[in-house]
C-alpha cells in the first residue's frame, strides 16, 4: 500500500491511543478510590465519607464518559485500518479483545448506572457492590488490554499456520514473558495517576483553605496509598526494563542510546544524557557513567547488553531521541512521585494530626497541585517508549507494521483523522469546562445519606445524580 497511507494510519492510531489512554487511567484509580471511601462510609457511618463518595463520583462521571467514547474507536480501528494485522493475529488477539469487551467493559457499564443513579434505590451494601464492580471492570479492562499488548511485545504460545497465527498454548500466550510486568506496571501507573490527581485537588483546596477538614481526609488517604505505590512502581519499572533488555534488545538499546555491545568481562556504560543519531548509527554526544547499564539492564556487573550497532538498521526502532528522552521523563517523574510522597508522609507525621500544621506546609501543598499533570505526561511517555520502541514490528519478530495495514485511501484516513482531531478537541475542552465548574462548586456538605430503601419506596424513588 502507498507509504503515505501507511504513515496516516499509524498517525491516526497514535493520536487516538494517546487521547484515549488519558481517561481510563483516571477511571481505574478514581473508581478504586471511590471503593475505598465508600467502604469507609459503610464501615464507620461517618457522613463525611459519604460526601466524599458523592463529590468525587461527579468527576468520575465526566471522565468515564470521555473514556467510553474514545475507547470504542480503539476496538474497531484494528479492523478498519489494520485488517492484515487482524487477519494474522485475530485468533489470539481478537479473542482477548472479545474477553475485554464481554468481561470487563460490560461489567463496568452494567453497574455504572446503579453507581451513579441508584443511591436512593438500593441499600448501602448493594451500592458498595456496584461501585466495586465498576472498579473491578475497569481494572479487568486494563488486564486484558495489557495481556493483548504484552503478547504483541513478546509473542508466545502461537505458531504460523497457513499464513496466520494459531494458538498452540493458551497459557503461554496469555502469560507471555512481558505480561506480568506489562499488567502490573500499567495498573500501578493508573493508580498513581488517580492518587496524584486526588492529592493535587485536595492540596489545592487545602492551600485555598476551602473546606480543609473535608479535603484533609482525601489528601491523607491518597498519600498513605502513594507512599506504598510510588516506590513499588519504581521496582516494577526496573523489572520491566530488565525484561525489555532480555526480550526486545532493539527497544532496550534504543531507549538507552546504547550502540556498542559490551565485551565479555566488561560492563556496559549508561548514558545520563545523549543525542542518538540513527543516520550516523552513533550518539552525537553522551555523558556516560561506566558499568551502570549492565547493572540496570541485567542486574549484574558484566551482563551483556546488545548494542544497536549489532542489530540490522531495518530492525531498529525509529525516532531514537524521542525514545531516549521520553523514557527519562517518565522515569524522572516516577522518582519525583516517590520523593514527594515520602516528604509528605514525613511532614504529616511531624504535624501529628494537627490540621493547621499541615495547612502551613504551603510549598508542599503547592508541589502537589503542580504535580497533577505529571502522571499524564509520564503515562504518555511510557506508552510512546513501549509502542514506538517496538517498531518496526507490530508483533515483535513476527509481523512488521508495514505489512499490517488495510488498503485504505489516504483521503479517507485524512478525513477520519480530521474527525477525531476535531471531536477530541471539543471533548477535552468541554471536560475541562465542566471539571472546573465541579471543582469550584466543591463538595455538598449538607448532603444527607439516603434513608435505607424499603421494597415499597424502591421502585418509585426519583432518579438522582
Amino acid at each position, binding site marked *: 500500500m502507498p507509504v503515505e497511507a501507511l504513515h496516516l494510519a499509524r498517525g491516526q492510531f497514535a493520536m487516538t491511543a494517546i487521547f484515549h489512554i488519558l481517561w481510563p487511567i483516571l477511571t481505574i484509580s478514581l473508581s478504586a478510590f471511590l471503593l475505598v471511601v465508600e467502604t469507609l462510609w459503610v464501615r464507620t457511618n461517618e457522613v463525611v465519607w459519604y460526601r466524599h463518595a458523592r463529590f468525587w463520583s461527579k468527576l468520575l*462521571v*465526566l471522565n*468515564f*464518559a*470521555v473514556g*467510553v*467514547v474514545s475507547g*470504542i*474507536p480503539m476496538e*474497531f480501528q484494528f*479492523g*478498519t*485500518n489494520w*485488517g492484515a494485522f*487482524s*487477519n494474522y*493475529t*485475530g*485468533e489470539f*488477539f*481478537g*479473542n*482477548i*479483545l*472479545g*474477553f475485554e*469487551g*464481554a*468481561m470487563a*467493559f*460490560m461489567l463496568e*457499564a*452494567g*453497574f*455504572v*448506572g*446503579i453507581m451513579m*443513579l*441508584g443511591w436512593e*434505590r*438500593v441499600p448501602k451494601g448493594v451500592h458498595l457492590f456496584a461501585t466495586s464492580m465498576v472498579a473491578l471492570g475497569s481494572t479487568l479492562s486494563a488486564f486484558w488490554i495489557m495481556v493483548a499488548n504484552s503478547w504483541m511485545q513478546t509473542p508466545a504460545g502461537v505458531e504460523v*499456520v497457513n499464513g*496466520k497465527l*494459531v*494458538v*498452540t498454548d*493458551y497459557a503461554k500466550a496469555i502469560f507471555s514473558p512481558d505480561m506480568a510486568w506489562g499488567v502490573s506496571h500499567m495498573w500501578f501507573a493508573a493508580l498513581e495517576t488517580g492518587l496524584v490527581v486526588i492529592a493535587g485537588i485536595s492540596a489545592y483546596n487545602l492551600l485555598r483553605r476551602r473546606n480543609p477538614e473535608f479535603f484533609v481526609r482525601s489528601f491523607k488517604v491518597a498519600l498513605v496509598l502513594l507512599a506504598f505505590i510510588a516506590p513499588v512502581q519504581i521496582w516494577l519499572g526496573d523489572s520491566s526494563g530488565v525484561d525489555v533488555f532480555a526480550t526486545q534488545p532493539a527497544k532496550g538499546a534504543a531507549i538507552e542510546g546504547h550502540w556498542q555491545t559490551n565485551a565479555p568481562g566488561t560492563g556496559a556504560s549508561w548514558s545520563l544524557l545523549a543525542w542518538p543519531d540513527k543516520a550516523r548509527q552513533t550518539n552525537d554526544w553522551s555523558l556516560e557513567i561506566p558499568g551502570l547499564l549492565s547493572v540496570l539492564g541485567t542486574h549484574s556487573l558484566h551482563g551483556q547488553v546488545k548494542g544497536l550497532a549489532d542489530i540490522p538498521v531495518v530492525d531498529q526502532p525509529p525516532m531514537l531521541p524521542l525514545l531516549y528522552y521520553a523514557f527519562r521523563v517518565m522515569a524522572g517523574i516516577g522518582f519525583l512521585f516517590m520523593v514527594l510522597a515520602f516528604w509528605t508522609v514525613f511532614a504529616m507525621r511531624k504535624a501529628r494530626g494537627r490540621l493547621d500544621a499541615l495547612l502551613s506546609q504551603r510549598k508542599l501543598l503547592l508541589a502537589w497541585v503542580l504535580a497533577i499533570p505529571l502522571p499524564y505526561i509520564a503515562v504518555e511517555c511510557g506508552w510512546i517508549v513501549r509502542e514506538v520502541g517496538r517498531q518496526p514490528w507490530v508483533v515483535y519478530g513476527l509481523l512488521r507494521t508495514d505489512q499490517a495495514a*488495510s488498503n*485504505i485511501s489516504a483521503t*479517507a484516513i485524512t*478525513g477520519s483523522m480530521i*474527525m477525531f482531531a476535531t*471531536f477530541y478537541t471539543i*471533548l477535552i475542552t*468541554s471536560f475541562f469546562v*465542566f471539571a472546573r465548574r465541579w471543582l469550584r462548586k466543591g463538595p455538598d456538605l449538607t448532603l444527607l445519606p439516603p434513608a435505607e430503601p424499603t421494597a415499597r419506596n424502591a421502585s*418509585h*424513588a*426519583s*432518579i438522582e445524580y
Partner: protein
Amino acid sequence: MNPASTESLLSHAWFGLIGLMLVLYVITDGFDLGVSILTLFRPKESERNLMIQSIGHVWDANETWLVALGGALFGAFPSAYAMILSDLYVPIMVLIASMIMRGAAIEFRHAATDSKPVWDRIFGVGSLLTAICQGVILGKILTGLVPGFLHLGFVVVTAIGVVSGYALLGATWLVKKTTGSLEQTARRYSITAVFTTVTAAIIVSAGTLVISPVGVSRWDQHGVLSILIGFAVLAALAVCYILYSVHMGSEHGPFAGSAILFIASFAGLAISLFPYIVPGQLTVASAASDSSTLTFMLFGIGIVFPIMIGYNLYQYHLFRGKVVPVHH
C-alpha cells in the same frame, strides 16, 4: 467427533452466539437510540429530560453489547471482522463519530447549564446518525459489499428501516416509562413508526430476494422458505399486537410486540444469510478461527454470558416503573 465436524459445530455455535449478541444490541441500544432520535421532535426541555431519564441508567450497558459483539467477531471470525470494517471504512468511521457525539452529549448535558439545548441537539443528531450508519452497514453487508445504483437504493431503504425500527422501539419504550401527554405522544409515534418500519421491511425482503447474492438460491433451499414464512407470520402478528396494545392503552404490550417484531425479522435475516457471514464473499466456515480459539472463547464468554444477562436485567429491574421528574 472428527475435527472437521467439531470445527463446524463450534463455528455455527459462534455464528449463533454473535447473532444473539446482535439481537440483544439491536433491541436494547435500539430503544435508547430511538428515544434519543425522538427527542429531536420535542422542543420542551422538560419533556426531553424525562425521555433521557428513561434511558439514563441503561444506555451505556446497552451500547456495550456492540463492543462485546465486535470483540467476539474479531476473535471468532477475524477475516469477517477485517473485511467488513476495512471495506466499509467510511460508514464505520461516521458511525464511530456519531457514537462519540451521543455518548459524550448524554453525559455532558447533565453538567451543562446554558449549553444544555446544544448538547441535546448533538445527542439527538448523533443518535440519528448512528441509526443511519447502522442501516447503511446492514444494507451493504446484505448486498455483499457490491457497489451499484440499485444497491445504493437498497441501502437507503435499509437505513430508513433501521431508523424507523429504532424509533418504534424508542416510542414503545416511552409508552412503558412515561405518563400523561408524553405517553400519548409516544403512542402516536408508535403507530407511525410501525407503518414506516413494516414498509421498509417489506421492501428490504423483496430486495434481498432480487439484489442480494443470497437471493433466490438460498430461499429455494429445502425447508428454508417455510421457516421464513413462519417468521413472516410471526412478524405480522407482532405488528397487529403492537397496534392493538397501543390502542387499548397497554403499557408493556407495545414494547414487547416491537421486540418480537425485531426478533422475527432478525431470525429471518440470519437464516437468509446463512451460511454466509458476508453474502457472496465470506462463509461462516471459511471465516472461522481454529477450534482451539473457538473453544477457549466459548468457555470464557459462554460462562460470562448468563452473568452479563443477569446483571443487565438487574439494572433494568432496579429502575423499573414510570420515570418521575427530578426536582433539584
